[in-house]
């Protein structure tokens, strides 16, 4: 068991070491961080074989009061931890090239190692509160890394936005935890020895949790946990932070905002899935509709972005939507949907990391020029990088026989079966959203790809772009290979994660074919417009809806302008001004007392006759009063 702890401890301890060593010799930090993650990966591999042979690594200690901490590695966790360590290692290796010249790269590597530790800790933690602690740790690392180039105003503003928006989700998650914890601690259903927030307990005794809390409160808990997932996994409507987060270094975007951290929300739902199931079918429908809506919604936004990283960011949101939606199709496969969702999650991590890192390689060659309209003709100039980008793109758009095809097609088919099992049109909505979403995926991906790769260079920088060295591209190549071939593990992956065989339901061929039709149509359409240079002649702003899309459905404006600037800030101003006047009112009251005192002081005139007069009057008054009251 001590070995499994090392998965977490290795990068956790490496973070300060990498920082200290990096202060002395900058180059060391990257090596130390990568090494520590390689160790984690190796141990995860060993653990994997342990889990295959039927062991569940579970150990817990008391943290404080009746809360515990520890590790819990089952099928789901080991699959995640393998993905996290592998992708993180690849990105670290690439980052040694990408961040190679940054003067603060020791800080960078310390923070990414810490982040990886946080992510691993989140995945293998045995207690939801411990989970939350790591959840916040990765959020903090994300904040620090988005603002890594602290001198860029955009970067710090984006970091702030990311922190606050995810914090909203996190606090919803916290409410969920609190209510769950309170309900379980107070109830007699749960033996205290089991520990109220232990994940193992929650997922094996979802029924007693339901008994302890009651349906309504459990529904509320799930809803709040989902709120946390929405914030972290940037689902509608808390998705606004992630496109801005692209201001950070591209390797950070690849690691945190594409492959690992943003999937934590999905992982949370998958982790405590029995609670969501116990909350009733409404909860599951919310998952399905929210995920599928986000998939479509973010896809439409990806089409109009010009910043290559933002296109990928919206793509990430959209793909996360598929994962969340998959978790809603409980009615189709039972708990088997976890496999469906996590498979998409893992495949997505591979190809999205690949896409981001090839974009990063392009950005280095182009001196951080991110506008796809200013690229063009790069396939000829950077053949290797753009080929990798191409592999990423075809996996993203689910071209047959890439891994993305297997992962996403299964989800879309499941959504059709979901419609069939539900019966009413309401249940058909996820299917509609996901289908159109897949068309959007094709459109934004190939728009980006054609603009980057084909045509003539449209800027001076693009004209002189060159491939980075082969060594730097090796990690990308590894990811590319996985993106292409990972599909062959589809069945075995489902079975592994679910712990039981999953038989995919067949859907009519006419339904099955729709994504392919969309794919072909989308590729032709985008090639026609963006591959040929036609787009330069089209006036897009005349297209209806373009302005709405450009303004991201005005949601960013709603959050920053309406809620923050017109709601919170004026409220703060009102409170602040009230406070000021309250304070001065206090002081006026104090001054009033003082001046009253100085008025009374005038009575002490020091003239003996006056005193005598007062004495005489007072005594006579007293006598009069006594007389009036009846005399002595």
């Amino acid at each position: 068991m001590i070995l499994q702890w090392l998965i977490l401890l290795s990068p956790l301890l490496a973070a300060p070491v990498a920082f200290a060593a990096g202060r002395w010799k900058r180059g060391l930090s990257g090596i130390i961080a990568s090494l520590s993650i390689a160790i984690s990966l190796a141990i995860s591999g060993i653990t994997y074989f342990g889990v295959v042979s039927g062991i569940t690594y579970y150990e817990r200690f008391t943290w404080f009061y009746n809360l515990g901490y520890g590790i819990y590695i089952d099928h789901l966790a080991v699959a995640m931890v393998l993905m996290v360590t592998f992708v993180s290692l690849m990105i670290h290796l690439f980052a040694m090239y990408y961040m190679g010249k940054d003067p603060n790269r020791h800080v960078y590597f310390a923070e990414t190692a810490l982040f990886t530790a946080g992510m691993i800790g989140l995945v293998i933690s045995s207690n939801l509160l411990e989970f939350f602690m790591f959840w916040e740790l990765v959020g903090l690392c994300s904040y620090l890394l988005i603002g890594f180039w602290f001198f860029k105003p955009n970067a710090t503003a984006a970091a702030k936005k990311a922190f606050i928006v995810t914090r909203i989700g996190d606090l919803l998650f916290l409410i969920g935890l609190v209510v769950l914890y309170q309900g379980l601690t107070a109830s007699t259903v749960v033996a205290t020895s089991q520990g109220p927030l232990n994940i193992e307990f929650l997922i094996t005794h979802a029924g007693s949790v339901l008994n302890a809390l009651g349906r309504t409160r459990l529904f509320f808990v799930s809803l709040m946990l989902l709120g946390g997932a929405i914030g972290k996994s940037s689902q509608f409507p808390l998705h606004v932070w992630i496109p801005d987060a692209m201001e950070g270094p591209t390797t950070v975007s690849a690691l945190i905002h594409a492959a690992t951290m943003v999937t934590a929300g999905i992982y949370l739902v998958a982790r405590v899935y029995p609670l969501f199931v116990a909350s009733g079918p409404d909860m599951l429908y919310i998952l399905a509709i929210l995920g599928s809506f986000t998939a479509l919604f973010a896809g439409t936004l990806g089409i109009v972005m010009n910043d290559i990283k933002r296109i990928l960011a919206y793509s990430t949101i959209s793909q996360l939507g598929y994962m969340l939606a998959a978790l809603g199709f409980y009615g189709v496969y039972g708990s088997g949907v976890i496999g469906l969702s996590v498979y998409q999650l893992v495949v997505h991590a591979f190809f999205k990391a690949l896409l981001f890192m090839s974009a990063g390689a392009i950005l280095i060659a182009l001196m951080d020029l991110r506008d796809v309209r200013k690229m063009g003709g790069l396939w000829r100039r950077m053949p290797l990088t753009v080929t990798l980008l191409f592999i990423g793109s075809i996996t993203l758009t689910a071209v047959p026989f890439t891994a993305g095809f297997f992962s996403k097609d299964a989800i879309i088919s499941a959504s059709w079966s979901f419609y069939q099992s539900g019966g009413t049109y309401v249940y058909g909505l996820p299917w509609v959203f996901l289908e159109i979403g897949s068309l959007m995926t094709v459109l934004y991906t190939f728009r980006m790809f054609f603009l980057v790769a084909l045509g003539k260079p449209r800027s001076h920088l693009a004209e002189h772009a060159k491939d980075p060295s082969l060594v730097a591209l090796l990690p990308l190549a590894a990811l590319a290979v996985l993106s292409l071939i990972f599909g062959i593990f589809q069945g075995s992956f489902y079975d592994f994660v679910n712990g039981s065989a999953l038989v995919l339901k067949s859907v009519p061929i006419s339904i099955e074919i729709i994504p392919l039709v969309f794919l072909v149509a989308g590729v032709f359409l985008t090639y026609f417009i963006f591959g040929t240079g036609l787009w330069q002649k089209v006036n897009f702003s005349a297209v209806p809806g373009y302005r709405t899309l450009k303004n991201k459905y005005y949601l960013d404006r709603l959050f920053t302008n309406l809620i923050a600037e017109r709601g919170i800030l004026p409220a703060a101003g009102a409170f602040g001004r009230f406070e000021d006047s309250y304070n001065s009112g206090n002081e006026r009251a104090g001054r009033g007392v003082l001046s009253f005192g100085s008025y009374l002081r005038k009575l002490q005139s020091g003239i003996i006759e006056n005193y005598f007069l007062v004495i005489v009057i007072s005594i006579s008054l007293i006598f009069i009063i006594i007389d009036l009251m009846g005399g002595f």
Partner: protein
Amino acid sequence: MIDLAAIFALLSALSVLTFFAGRHSSAFAMISSAVVMVATAFYVAITMESYTGGMIGRYSIVLNSAQGISFSIGISGFTAPLLLAASIVFPLALFLSRGGEYGGTFYGLMMISETGLYGVLISRDFMFFYIFWEVVLVPVFFLITLYGGVRRQSVSLKFFVYTHIGSAFILLSIFSLYAYYFAIYGTFSMQISSLTDPAFVSKIPYFWQIFVIAGLMIGFLVKLPTFPIHSWLPDTYDTAPYPVTVIIAGGLSLMGGYGLFGIMLRMGTLFPLVSLWFIIMLSLISLVYFSLTAMYQYRIKRMMAYASAGSMGFVTLAFASGIMEKTGTDYVLAISGGMFQIFAHSLIIALLFASIFYIRKVSGNDSIFGLGGIYREAPLLSSITLGGLLASLGLPGLAGFVGEFSILGGTFQTIGYLIFVVIFSMIITASYHIWFAQRSLYGPYNEGLGRIRDLSRSEFIVLGSLLFFLLFIGVFPSLFFNLFSSYVGGLL
């Protein structure tokens, strides 16, 4: 053999000697308080190793048996961490003021107020409790009025009047209890444990019960502070010199919290229900009001003053709803959480004011708009400030979270979905903390500040170890949380 009475005697002697240390008074005070800190840490570690509840190390010297006055001291699982916090905060404040900028009187007054605070926390007798309570306030009044910034006279007067009104209420309540104790039992007693015994208090006439409870509550709530009686706080924090702000925020806030949980808690069953709801409402108002008001401030010191007041809303919330629960795990959670919050808040706010002090010192500026991007010039200072901010906004893994979590867990049963009000205030708190960090620590450097220095090695070690301690508490909260929960469990 370390002993509570010995530490206290040593502290008192050293604090008097500080006045006569002349030009070495700064070093003398710093070393003395550090010695006291180490001694306290050892004492707490030894005494609390196998703590299971109740008072430990009770001493009692009967001074006047006819009038029931005795000098008795002792610590419990609740006061031990607070003592530790107090003994950490004072050396920190003295470290900030080192260099002889101020005269011997300054350091002497600081040490006297440490003695007073120590006395408040260890006294088991109302007589000495009250005396030490005043011993804290008077030196602080002089510290502000002699060494403060603009408007120091009026601000120190305001501080004094406010806290003194509170003290007057406390004194009246103590005397009422004292008198009724004699009336009922025929003997005099000033013991806190006998005068706050609910079996006794419930015997006195209802009006006087309410009078006593209200009087003590007002006295302690002023000190915390809570919403309508907080007006002394922002001005005091703002005007006091930074080292004094550190001790007011980090040290004196312990007094109010101690009053609530150390003294009022036993009378909890006698609180009328409506008064508890009243306190809960005040806490919720405090949480929202102070966080929004803090957001409006552009001077960091004032902003953090409101942040400090805001986190006290958690304490009163925990207190009132814990009492309302009366028993069970929710009670233990809420009350221990409130205690933890006092303890953690004291250290966090001390760290924050200390780092703001250095920001002010190196850049000559403490307005959010006047700073900007100082991370480039002073990375160590900025990182520590960020650490303090994160602890203050309640990031898990740092000290602030544990208290907030258990308070929320313990109070949910009582306040129900009003929990969203608390969460709203937490969101606002996070927003302005991060806004401050983004505005003044990161972003492009404000060249108008010129070149500024970073923390020196010794400064970094002091602040860094405090931050490390906060991290340590956050990761291993059970060390202190178990003390609190055993103490609370012992009361049941």
